């Protein structure tokens, strides 16, 4: 089935899943409350956003130069950098490395890029046990599901779901429902695996050019353990994560935390710049950074939409989006959900995901919350424009004709008059939303608006010139 049809089908089903919407509503409300309080910690949230935009714009404008600077500084400490043009190249590099070093167990902390390249299934297929260690990711991995949300992977689940899952998979007593107990069980289980793993894989939130450091943001400590215990540490991330200077983090750490969860900063913000050094007592023997392009270079070539590369994956645009709330993260059928997913996925995976631009009310809420001021809803419009150029010629001709009719006051008036007459006729044929109703595609889900007796123009004319109960008014009465 093509992606657009699949979306329609899934959206229809999920939109009426009442229990799911109860969980989502609660989680989203908790987030909005925390994020609102978080923004108040700033003297001027919009100043922070504008500054962040300026920094990211500079970083992306000289991305090639900054990437080289990052590479030079990281390799000086003995880290290795691998550049991957495609998802397959990134996967193959990590797989080959794991094989070469006889890796049998991998611990992974959250990385959306690893989802993008489908790394875990590839490792598992090669017989390498791969454990997601972020609690939310761990839960969805046990359920055999993709993450529901780029920041909160298990946002769609209640504690009862988790309790039932842990009962089944970890043998926890059925009665254990308290989040503390569930977390403790997962911690104990995963700690064993941490101590046994030979390779730790993390993502990166930022790549710091001037310091040659990878910045990883988290709350749980699993990324720190992944970078501390196994003998190989692999960072898998996108080339767009560059920040020019270490000190930019003084803005970006609080910005990301506030937009992501409402925290002042997250619990752990680590900076990693290589394997264990001579004067250090622990840490991995090898550190590899895999820089993924996978369509990002081509996105940079589109000056109109280049700022999509500024995204820091905070999830704020998902959390505020009425479509996300309706169709949920799984409805999109993509690695990145919500407004950012809708604008990014067509660039990463081609125009067969262009339909996602239609999955928007164009309310602009996403744009208003984005901490780096990405023009999200204008980009949705641009994508609609682009995909309209790929529609069948009949449809294009129809819209051109409509454009011609609507582009002129007189013609538009005539069109409106005809339209009202036609609608009235259509409404007279059958009861609204009944099977025979020709307007059923609309009335099935919504009440049809009542048609006014006269058009606004007629009403306006009359109001300006009450004497003229003329032509226009008379015609309107019939139309």
């Amino acid at each position, binding site marked *: 089935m093509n992606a657009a049809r699949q979306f329609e089908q899934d959206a229809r089903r999920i939109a009426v899943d009442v229990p799911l919407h109860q969980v989502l509503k609660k989680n989203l409300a908790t987030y909005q409350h925390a994020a609102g309080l978080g923004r108040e910690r700033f*003297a001027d949230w919009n100043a922070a956003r504008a500054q962040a935009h300026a920094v990211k714009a500079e970083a992306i404008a000289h991305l090639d130069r900054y990437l080289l600077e990052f590479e030079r500084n990281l390799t000086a400490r003995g880290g290795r950098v691998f550049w991957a043009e495609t998802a397959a190249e990134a996967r193959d590099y990590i797989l080959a490395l794991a094989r070469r070093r006889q890796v049998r167990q991998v611990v992974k902390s959250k990385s959306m890029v690893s989802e993008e390249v489908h790394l875990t299934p590839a490792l598992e297929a090669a017989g390498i046990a791969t454990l997601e260690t972020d609690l939310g990711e761990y839960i969805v991995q046990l359920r055999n599901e993709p993450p529901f949300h780029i920041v909160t992977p298990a946002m769609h689940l209640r504690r009862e779901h988790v309790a039932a899952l842990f009962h089944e998979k970890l043998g926890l007593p059925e009665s254990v429902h308290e989040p503390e107990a569930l977390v403790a069980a997962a911690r104990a289980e995963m*700690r064993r695996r941490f101590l046994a793993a030979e390779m730790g894989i993390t993502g990166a939130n930022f790549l710091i050019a*001037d310091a040659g450091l990878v910045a990883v943001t988290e*709350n749980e*400590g699993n990324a720190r353990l992944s970078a501390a215990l196994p003998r190989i540490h692999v960072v898998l991330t996108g080339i767009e994560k560059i920040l020019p200077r270490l000190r930019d983090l003084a803005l970006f750490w609080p910005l990301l935390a506030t937009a992501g969860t409402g925290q002042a900063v997250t*619990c752990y913000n*680590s900076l990693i710049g290589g394997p264990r050094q001579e004067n*250090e007592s622990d840490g991995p023997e090898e550190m590899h950074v895999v820089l993924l392009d996978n369509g990002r270079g081509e996105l940079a070539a589109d000056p109109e939409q280049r*700022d999509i590369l500024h995204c820091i994956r905070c999830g704020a645009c998902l959390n505020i989006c009425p479509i996300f709330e309706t169709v949920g993260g799984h409805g999109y059928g993509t690695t990145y959900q919500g407004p950012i997913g809708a604008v990014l996925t067509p660039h990463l995976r081609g125009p067969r995901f262009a339909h996602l631009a239609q999955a928007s009310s164009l309310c602009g809420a996403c744009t208003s919350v984005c901490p780096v001021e990405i023009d999200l809803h204008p980009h949705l419009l641009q994508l609609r424009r682009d995909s309209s150029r790929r529609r069948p010629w009949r449809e294009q001709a129809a819209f051109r004709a409509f454009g011609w009719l609507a582009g002129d006051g007189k013609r538009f008036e005539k069109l409106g008059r005809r339209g009202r007459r036609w609608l009235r006729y259509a409404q007279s044929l059958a009861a609204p939303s009944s099977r025979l109703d020709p307007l059923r595609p609309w009335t099935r889900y919504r009440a049809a608006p009542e048609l006014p007796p006269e058009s606004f123009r007629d009403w306006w004319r009359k109001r300006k010139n009450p004497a003229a109960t003329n032509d226009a008014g008379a015609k309107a009465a019939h139309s």
Partner: protein
Amino acid sequence: MNQENPARERILRRLAAALKTPTQPPWTHSPADAARPAFAPLTDIRTHFRDECAANRTELIEGRREELVRAFYKLLMDTGLAPGENPGPGAPRIYAQKPAAGVEAIWEELLRPWQGCSDGPDSGPPDDRHATSLTLAEALIARTGSLLISTAQGGRAASVLPPLHIVYARAEQIVAELDDALARLQNHGPTPARSMFSLITGPSRTADIEKMLVLGAHGPKRLVILLDA
């Protein structure tokens, strides 16, 4: 040309070509916004630090040396560590970083009762027997109630593996802003020599189940700062 990684040149070449065309700022962007300060300056650094610690669940114990030594003793007793020469093989242990210059005396005082069960970087990395760790910090940050540590503080795992992490710090180590702490890392040039740093803000946590806060997800359940006033 990098023989092993031909994609490198291709990616860089594509970027260089792509970025020749400049781009427009977003519709909503206003440079005047960017010129205003994002944060209001802190008036009372010490109080702010204290409040932020309380908010992020860091346990802050302020006092004179003797008080801190007593508090430390009590913390370790609570953790189930037994003072004395020879605890059993499976008994909980403490992992302490080597004392840096200037803190040898207090280190000696803090650890004296626990000699039989304390380890450090010289005896290898920490493991699951370590119920607690004792480290220093590079800096404390008032704005967020955080501490910045590096691998100099006992390595990478010492401050994340044990369920209780205790930090000894002096009040002069508190800086106002994250920026002050980050600038410090670049004191000797833009690229710090250490391979890992962590900004730590409270004990480990998760809110992945119904957005309910649970402490001690993977890292320490408790974070205690002994602040030498």
